[in-house]
């Protein structure tokens, strides 16, 4: 987890033997006679004491109370005995395992008076209360972002509002400690450029994304998902510039797939598109904050949405894969079920589809088709994609009839071939529609692949949800799926 810090700082331990101890550790105290013997027999031995430079009694030690040696040598347990040669570590043992200490040192009767085994204690350099400070102290030079100083009397949360860094809700102040902690969630170099962020075409580094992930409230384990989602939206296919700048009410909708969604406790069930789950909410929010704060995409400026939608604060959820009768969205898009992925979709807010009576799959497919026809306008074909989030109770109707994902999508699309006569301009008393030239044609509501299916939601309720899309394809946006690293 701390690899990024270690790579930039030379290990301070010199060649020969090093032993890291602390007085507070009962195992360290127990092996004092062993330490004294090693000091006599191993001339190269340097003892580092974390909490008391007078420890061990009778043996000269180096004061490591700033934990520099412990941190850089990646010590997580004391005592730890290390042997280095030609600038590289050859061997180490942690805790007291008599057999190992004897083999390592070549002293056959070492510690004869001690028990065979005694576990060590936690190193002070991994103490959760101080590890963040150490990360900044010894790895802080990896941060390059401009530092913003705020006055001591200034309320830090109000300061973030005043400087325009928020989406309208409070954000977590991104202190160096918090940003370094977030960076522990990735093995990527903080200076790696992930993408060029619209609209200002700013190079987007891992560090910049980490800052916004902190502000959004993410945990470090969410960070790779945020990075993947940003990689996905900052592509020509997804076209985040247009999604941001459009007058339509869309934003990036992030659908997460794979076993990792369960490891980070994402919600794919009750209230899946609503509030209450930290991972869902903060991953989506980090994506939006990054575009706002790094890309410069702010409402009323390049963001010209006439109405927007509440999902532009955050719109991210996981697919319920384990309870689904269908192959998942990511598998349908060519990925393996064991892979973690994000699929980004330019979408508006969700609406509910109610059908509590359909027990035959054909009936429910017809309900879906009829509701999906109204996406943006019932007389506008082919222009917009849509995502159908099918609830478990609706999915069961198809499961009982052995309908696959492909069958369901085909049946819906078959019911969405729109006669030109119904959708030409003026038909049905509505000016909106297609040109007169199409009056004898049959036009599909969705382009091939333009209807996406995701299984998610609570187990009670014969409902599903529709998320309308935006201008589709090369003209506007294509859904983009990316692997989540690590």
């Amino acid at each position, binding site marked *: 987890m701390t690899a990024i810090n270690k790579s930039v700082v030379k290990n301070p331990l010199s060649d020969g033997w090093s032993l890291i101890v602390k007085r507070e550790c009962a195992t360290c105290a127990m092996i004092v006679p062993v330490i004294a013997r090693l000091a006599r027999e191993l001339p190269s031995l340097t003892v580092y004491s974390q909490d008391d430079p007078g420890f061990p009694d009778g043996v000269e030690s180096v004061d490591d109370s700033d934990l520099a040696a412990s941190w850089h040598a990646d010590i997580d347990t004391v005592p730890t005995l290390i042997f280095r040669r030609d600038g590289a570590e050859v061997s180490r043992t942690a805790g007291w395992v008599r057999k190992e200490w004897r083999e390592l040192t070549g002293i056959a009767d070492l510690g004869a008076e001690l028990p065979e085994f005694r576990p060590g204690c936690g190193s002070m350099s991994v103490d959760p209360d101080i590890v963040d400070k150490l990360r900044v102290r010894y790895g802080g030079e990896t941060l390059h972002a401009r530092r913003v100083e705020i006055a001591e009397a200034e309320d830090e949360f109000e300061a973030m509002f005043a400087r325009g860094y928020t989406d309208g809700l409070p954000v977590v102040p991104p202190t160096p400690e918090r940003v370094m902690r977030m960076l522990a969630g990735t093995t990527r170099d903080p200076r790696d450029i992930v993408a060029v962020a619209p609209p200002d075409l700013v190079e987007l580094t891992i560090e910049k994304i980490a800052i916004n992930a902190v502000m959004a409230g993410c945990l470090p384990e969410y960070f790779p998902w945020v990075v993947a989602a940003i990689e996905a939206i900052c592509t020509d296919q997804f076209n985040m*510039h247009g999604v941001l700048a459009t007058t339509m009410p869309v934003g990036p909708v992030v659908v997460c797939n794979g076993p990792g969604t369960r490891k980070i406790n994402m919600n794919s069930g009750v209230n899946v598109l609503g509030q209450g789950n930290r991972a869902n909410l903060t991953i989506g929010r980090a994506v939006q904050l990054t575009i706002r704060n790094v890309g410069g995409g702010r409402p009323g400026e390049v963001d010209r949405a006439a109405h927007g939608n509440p999902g532009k604060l955050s719109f991210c959820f996981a697919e319920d894969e384990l309870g689904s009768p269908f192959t998942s969205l990511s598998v349908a898009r060519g990925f393996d079920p064991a892979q973690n992925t994000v699929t980004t979709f330019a979408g508006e807010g969700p609406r509910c589809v109610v059908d509590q009576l359909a027990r035959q799959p054909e009936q429910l497919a017809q309900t879906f088709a009829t509701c999906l026809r109204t996406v943006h306008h019932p007389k506008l074909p082919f222009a917009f994609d849509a995502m159908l989030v099918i609830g478990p109770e609706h999915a069961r109707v198809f499961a009982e009839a052995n309908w696959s994902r492909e069958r369901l999508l085909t049946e819906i699309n078959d019911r969405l071939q729109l006669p030109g006569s119904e959708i030409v301009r003026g038909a049905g008393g509505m000016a909106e529609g297609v040109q007169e030239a199409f009056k004898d044609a049959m036009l599909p509501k969705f382009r091939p692949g333009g209807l996406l299916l995701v299984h998610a939601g609570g187990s009670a309720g014969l409902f599903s949800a529709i998320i309308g899309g935006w201008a589709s394809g090369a003209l506007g946006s294509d859904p983009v799926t990316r692997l989540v690293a690590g």
Partner: protein
Amino acid sequence: MRELLARPRSIVDQTIGLLDISKARGDVFLNQLESRLVAAGAKVLRFRKPTFTKPAPVDLRHEIATKCTLVIEALAD
């Protein structure tokens, strides 16, 4: 951020690029504009970007910057 250039005093003999962003009826607006500008003594060049949802491609921006002294972009429908 680069500083804006000073506004020209007159459009006579200026080369004005008209960028159609490919929104519906943008060409109708630009046709009107072109006839007015030509009548006022300007030279007009027409450009079109592939889709209104994406920024103009770099090559197109470069071409406009190279060939024109002024540019007018039809923004919306």
